[in-house]
């Protein structure tokens, strides 16, 4: 097992990883930008290295500085968290070439799954169902029209280099197509330095269901059931839960097996997530595989008792999976609300600044993952996620009641947050009944 790891991230996920390492008796090295001098992850880690100025490009995305920080502190492994360098195959490769263990899958796997079209081809080959559409980048309008002829409007244009909801455009008819392709290509180029696009059929009000995978380097692989992440705002997940109210045991087994098939096709190791869309006829389609820990991993932890970040570390160190399918007991229901420092009443504009009074929720069935503390100033430079509130209940109703209770207790003064929006969603009749889909916020709640 590692004696010391470096956490190449900030915020709540840096703290999450430090916690796992501490419980494993592994020393931790935090890295931070000049804007994060007052961050809690520095205080929780055993060591801390300033790696650059506030700008992400010059700090949390600066590969040489991070690798160098690992080398000067003698860290044997780097945990990338999510975002930043977590799905950057070059970073994983450089870690490997410098004898530093990258806590995640092999760099080749990240490369394969990072190219969303390449992933589609691999999955098609493996027999995993895809949303009808391209398996090659669009070369021309004609090319696009030929594909659309087979799948019909509306369609989604997506970036090959993409993921995380960026660079997606919906096209409702032929007239919009040309301009949509142009804009999407520009957006994709800006976001991923890759203007390549592909086309998929647009599904009407699908549900986002993803399967959590664990795989060791010895060929053992299990899944931990699904998470439903249908409550999204502009393709960004806002509320996640496990299990999904759309799945029965039979469908869960089928989707789980399909996810394992997908992961095996790329000889996956470490922790990962296979994402599917589920339509109203309970047909499901692969959309992408995330080769990292996900923001919403705590809901799976709550219903399994398994610490996924510890598992990442174990698996990266080459250990065998310590449990098999029969040991996994999914019980109860868990819900996560992402608390973002934005103003939902003002177009979700960022709401940075000093947090004055702060009381976080507690008590039975409530978990809070956060890096904020009283008098902490939320810097404007990074992601708006300031806390995750996760609740557990014996069933969905109890988890929802508990979340309502926790949100009511939560006092964050000085900045605006998504809490009022969460309360609105949780108390919506359709949500309570589990009638949700990825367009729920725009269509049903009118956000």
């Amino acid at each position, binding site marked *: 097992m590692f004696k010391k790891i470096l956490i190449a991230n900030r915020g709540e996920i840096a703290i999450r990883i430090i916690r796992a390492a501490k419980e494993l008796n592994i020393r931790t090295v935090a890295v931070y930008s*000049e804007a994060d001098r*007052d961050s*809690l992850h*520095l*205080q*929780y*880690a*055993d*060591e*801390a*290295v*300033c*790696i*650059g*100025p506030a700008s992400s490009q010059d*700090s949390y995305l600066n590969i*040489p*500085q*991070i*690798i*160098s*920080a690992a*080398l*000067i*502190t003698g860290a044997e492994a780097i945990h990338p968290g999510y975002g930043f360098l977590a799905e950057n195959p070059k970073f994983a490769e*450089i870690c490997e070439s*410098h004898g530093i263990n990258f806590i995640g899958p092999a760099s080749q796997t990240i490369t394969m799954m990072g190219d969303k079209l390449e992933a589609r081809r691999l999955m098609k080959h493996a027999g995993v169902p895809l949303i009808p559409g391209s398996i090659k980048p669009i070369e021309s309008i004609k090319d696009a029209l030929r594909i659309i002829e087979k799948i019909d409007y509306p369609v989604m244009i997506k970036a090959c280099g993409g993921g995380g909801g960026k660079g997606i455009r919906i096209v409702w008819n032929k007239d919009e197509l040309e301009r949509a392709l142009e804009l999407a290509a520009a957006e994709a180029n800006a976001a991923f330095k890759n203007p390549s696009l592909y086309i998929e059929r647009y599904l009407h009000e699908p549900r986002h269901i993803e399967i959590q995978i664990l795989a060791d380097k010895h060929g053992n692989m299990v899944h931990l059931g699904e998470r439903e992440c249908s409550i999204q705002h502009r393709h960004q997940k806002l509320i996640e839960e496990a299990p999904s109210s759309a799945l029965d045991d039979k469908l869960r087994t089928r989707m789980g097996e399909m996810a394992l098939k997908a992961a095996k096709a790329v000889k996956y190791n470490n922790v990962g997530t296979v994402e599917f869309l589920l339509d109203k006829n309970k047909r499901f389609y692969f959309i992408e595989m995330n080769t990292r820990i996900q923001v919403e991993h705590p809901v799976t932890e709550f219903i399994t008792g398994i610490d996924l970040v510890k598992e990442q570390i174990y698996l990266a160190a080459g250990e065998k999976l310590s449990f098999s399918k029969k040991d996994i007991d999914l019980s109860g229901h868990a819900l996560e609300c992402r608390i973002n420092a934005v103003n939902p009443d003002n177009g979700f504009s960022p709401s940075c600044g000093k947090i004055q009074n702060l009381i976080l929720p507690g008590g039975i069935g409530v978990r809070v993952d956060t890096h904020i*503390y*009283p*008098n*902490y100033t939320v810097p404007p430079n990074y992601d708006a996620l300031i806390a995750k509130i996760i609740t557990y209940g014996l069933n969905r109703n109890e988890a929802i009641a508990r979340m309502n209770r926790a949100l009511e207790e939560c006092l964050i003064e000085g900045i605006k947050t998504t809490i009022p929006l969460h309360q609105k969603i949780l108390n919506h009749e359709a949500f309570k009944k589990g009638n949700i889909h990825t367009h729920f916020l725009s269509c049903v709640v009118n956000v």
Partner: protein
Amino acid sequence: MDLKRVKRLMTIMEKENLAELELEDEEFKVKITKPEFGVVAPLSVGHKYGIPAITTTSKKIPIKEFEKEKLTPNLRLVKLTSPMVGFFYHSQTPTSPPYVKVGDKITVSQMVGAVEVMGVINEIEAKVSGEIKKILVEDGHPVEYGQPLFLIEPEEE
């Protein structure tokens, strides 16, 4: 002078009931955080950093560091900080003479040291002309971004 000035600042903080005070001029840079306001400072998380060279800069209250410098009242010193994370070297190779030593006169753009990042030696150049008054990090020790490496007395213009 430095300690007295720090004490004066702390009196002002007390009076004005300030949580934090940051002050920088050519001869002096200090940031004082009162522990009862900022929550971070007093957290007991065991010792930070096994590596002595970085310890001082990752501490919250840098007053002691300045105490140690024992700056004379009218000395106007400029800090040259590390632009990167790595191992700091006084000379280009283990056998070559040091880039500079205390008392050396240096000119703008002169190479004064090197930081090894992932095996690559990056030479550090002076931003001002003047005299090296102190080398703050020992040869071969690790440095973080923004860590002071040299105190330089700039040339009169």
